[in-house]
């Protein structure tokens, strides 16, 4: 009985020891519980955040500029497209 328990103890701790010798595996364990979690928390949010929008201002009036300026960071990131480039993109 005693011998069986000793065997089980050494076989069990052997698993832990062999893991501690596998540096690649240890590195991965550390990564997945630190950097991976941090990156995930930084990455995806359900909220609106710097959505890329393009504005084609063919009017160039005060009003159209006001509309364009209503899209504020950090919710949006704006790409101003000239009417010429817009027409070209529709052709392509």
């Amino acid at each position: 009985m005693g011998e069986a328990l000793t065997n089980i103890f050494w076989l069990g701790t052997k698993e832990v020891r062999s893991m501690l010798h596998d540096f690649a595996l240890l590195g991965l364990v550390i990564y997945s519980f630190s950097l991976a979690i941090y990156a995930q928390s930084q990455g995806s949010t359900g909220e609106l955040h710097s959505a890329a929008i393009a504005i084609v201002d063919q009017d160039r009036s005060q009003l159209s500029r006001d509309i364009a300026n209503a899209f504020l960071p950090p919710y949006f990131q704006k790409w101003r497209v000239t009417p010429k480039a817009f027409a070209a993109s529709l052709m392509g």
Partner: protein
Amino acid sequence: MHHRLASGELQLAIEVPPGFGRNVRRGHPAEVGAWIDGAMPFHGESVRGYVQGVHTRFLTEVAAVSRTGRTASPASIEIRFRYNQDFNSNEAMVPSTMSMLLALVPAILMALAVVREKELGSITNLYVTPVRRIEFIVGKQLPYVALAMADFAVLAAMAVFIFGVPLKGSLATLVVGALIYVTATTAYGLLISSFASTQIAALFGTAILTVLPATQFSGMLVPVSTLSGLPLLMGRLFPMTYFLPISIGSFTKSLGFSELGLTIGELALFVPALTLLSLCLLRKQER
């Protein structure tokens, strides 16, 4: 009501106080409460969008009724969906899932193939024969590239014939993109195999180093352009970020080589970069 919101049974609760209708008709300020379950921000944002839409429509209707003869809004907005007009989620998810599987499976198989040789000891062949490291890498990689292309053929056929996602763009562009992509993802597996010494580390490592960037940072759920910092870096340095626009572009957006050529070029940079890196890390002799 709060209890049913808390249990997740209700997404939205609307509270209309007594005298609301009378106040509105008389032009008095009136309030309605809208309680939204924000525990799932994704759903919450959608519900809020609908509530605000209904609110705005209601206000313009009231304004139209009170000022008869005048149009409520001086301008109208036309909203057009450019692609996938009927909002079929299959057309977005099937090409995305295909990209994810082609990132995960070839990389895992490749990493295991090399590390298994390390564990079995047959890697001694590399150590003792004059085989050069590049020959070893290419010889190991090519069968898995072929296997991954067979996977791709099956997945693409399933997308078209089972899920009914039409391939609107150029098949040739998609095939070229996929070939470069699976070469890059097998090279990714090779890179992981160069520092993993056990099969468990190779399997676990490839899975965790692939699944996080693939699902979160490559544009599958959130556009890459909205990311910043570490997630952006992880996304930009992962091949799937470049294959996803090729896959979705070919299937749903009916794009061809002229639009996707640049993306394919960027994707192609992964192949020499990853191969060179594994070449540097692969030892000709065991430590």
